């Protein structure tokens, strides 16, 4: 009983990290209806810039954090201008898109952001060629032991202690606050209204005098800055960054975002938590390979599941 609780707890804490990582991805998709595949590479290159400052110039953690967030936003601007900044309203049937159907431009953005992914990842590796690079550490020493006598007295099972890392818990709390705050801000503030208006109908937003292109670039950069926040938070727990980080951010974030319904901000939280719990259970039952497999199997099943038949185009 207690080890299952421990598993669920670990899964939930991991899942909060996935939700944090997927937040920016889902926000971009909500606004642009485009998937930014360079998302993970953006976070990774920004983290590498931070690690470079840390290693070469012994920058303090707060400066690294600022650098990571700011460079993620800047790289995001570059990605947006190159891959997503196309005038999309020129015609319904863009001339010579690879796939000229209804989602032609969507696929162009998908493929070109994939190309930029490779570019950014290579730039990061050129910056710091080693496989393991030090990152400022904010990890807490030791962990809390939480006495679980309640279970003992209620269910008759012997009580025990749960292990809980305080830094992980802080990350989870931060994620929940950030997600709920962002969702509320999108719903209540004027800027959030503008973002939703652009997402809802670009032409109508343009007609009422909104600078659609600039808003899109701003929102995109903000979402990428969120990826910088996520990158700093996750990496400072590990105190190191490797070239695998970009792929990790994209895949975990993508699964969390798709599980939660791409574009939904609160959904990412649930998607991330679900992914964390499923991974944790799969690992304990079937081993480390199964944990990895479970991620993709979950993603695949959610995508092709027959019960999504009606909502397929809406997502």
């Amino acid at each position, binding site marked *: 009983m207690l080890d299952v609780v421990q598993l669920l707890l670990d899964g939930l804490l991991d899942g909060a990290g996935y939700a944090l990582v997927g937040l920016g991805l889902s926000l971009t998709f909500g606004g642009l209806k485009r*998937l930014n595949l360079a998302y993970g590479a953006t976070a990774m290159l920004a983290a590498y810039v931070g690690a470079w400052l840390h290693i070469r110039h012994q920058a303090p953690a707060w400066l690294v954090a600022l650098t990571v967030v700011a460079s993620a936003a800047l790289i995001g601007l570059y990605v947006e201008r*190159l*891959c997503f900044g*196309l005038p999309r309203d020129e015609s319904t049937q*863009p001339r*010579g*898109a*690879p*796939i*000229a*159907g209804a*989602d032609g431009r*969507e*696929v*162009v953005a*998908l*493929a*070109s*952001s*994939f*190309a*930029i*992914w*490779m*570019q*950014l*990842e*290579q*730039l990061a*590796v*050129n910056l710091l060629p080693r496989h393991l690079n030090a990152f400022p550490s904010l990890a807490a020493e030791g962990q809390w032991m939480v006495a679980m006598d309640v279970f003992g007295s209620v269910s008759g099972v012997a009580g025990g202690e749960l292990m809980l890392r305080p830094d992980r818990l802080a990350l989870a709390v931060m994620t929940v606050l950030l997600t709920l705050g962002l969702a509320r801000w999108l719903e209540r503030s004027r800027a959030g209204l503008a973002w939703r208006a652009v997402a809802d109908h670009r032409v109508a937003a343009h007609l009422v005098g909104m600078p659609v292109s600039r808003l899109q670039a701003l929102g995109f950069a903000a979402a990428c800055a969120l990826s910088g926040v996520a990158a700093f938070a996750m990496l400072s727990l590990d105190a190191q960054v490797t070239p695998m980080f970009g*792929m990790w951010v994209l*895949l975990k974030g*993508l699964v969390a975002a*798709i599980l939660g319904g791409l574009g939904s901000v609160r959904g990412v939280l649930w998607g991330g938590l679900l992914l964390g719990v499923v991974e944790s259970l799969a690992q304990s039952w079937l081993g480390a*390979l199964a944990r*990895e*497999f479970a*991620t*993709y*199997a979950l*993603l*695949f099943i959610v*995508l*092709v599941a027959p019960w999504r*038949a009606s909502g*397929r*185009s809406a*997502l």
Partner: protein
Amino acid sequence: MSASWVHAVGLASDMAIMSLLALSAYLLLLVGRVSFGQQAFFGLGAYASGVMSALFAWPLAAALALGVVVGALCSWALALPTMRLSGLHYAVATLAFGEMARIALSALHWQRPTEDGPVGPAGIEGFRDIRWLLENDVSAEAYLLLTLGLLAAVLGLLMAAERTRLGTAWRMTGQDDVLTAAQGVSVARMRLLVAALAGGLAALGGGLYAHRTTYIEPALFDPMLGVHAVGYALLGGLGTALGPFLGVVIDLGLLDAARLFPGWRMVIFGGLVALFLRWRPRGLLDEVLVHRLGQWLRRQPPAQPPNPPTAP
């Protein structure tokens, strides 16, 4: 034999093998699908044909053929549940499938003891000693000729197929599936057929790759391989089956072989693909250019000016 000659033969073989993978991505692009999972069929084909030739001593041709069948069947099976997905969800689903296949191959242990020790897939350690070429005294040059011959045959078949009604139906499906269905062409059938063909092509490339390098491991078949395949097709052009080949030549032949930009190859290649997609979304050899080239070729030699009719 100089080292540069050996390197050149190896590079040419790699280019031919990558062209097969790029062609499989190209076929799917023709029917309007972006797949980030072609590396899975490449890997499945490599493992299937490697197992057959190394564990069961099948001849190379039979092992390759079995790999093609496995790749085609798996690709067809993947196309069934993903049939109705939109472009974006299809791309993500194929990516997920590719990773599932890679992890499944990482869990595959199937070894047989031989006098040189156990042979066969050993999970994450990979699959060593696919030694059919060494045991049968096939030189690297002869194998290169075989690979090039297979590539030429595939290119010829595809270019011939595109001139038929079937090829026209593929392009129609990619342009507008609703309109195509309205013309009485079964979009689902076209996509299933093309998926099977593409899976078979990728698996053929994988089988050739496994026998060339004698060693494969699951980590080789990561999404980057599939992305490259799509990138080659988009860079080279979707107007003709020669397009993906041109993309491979540009990347492997020019950027990598020339070693002009060590460490910057991906930066340049990635940037090129993104720029191309922005200003030339269907690649270098797009349909318009292919059509113009075709007209130009047909005009050579210039047609005889018609004789003015002489009055009787």
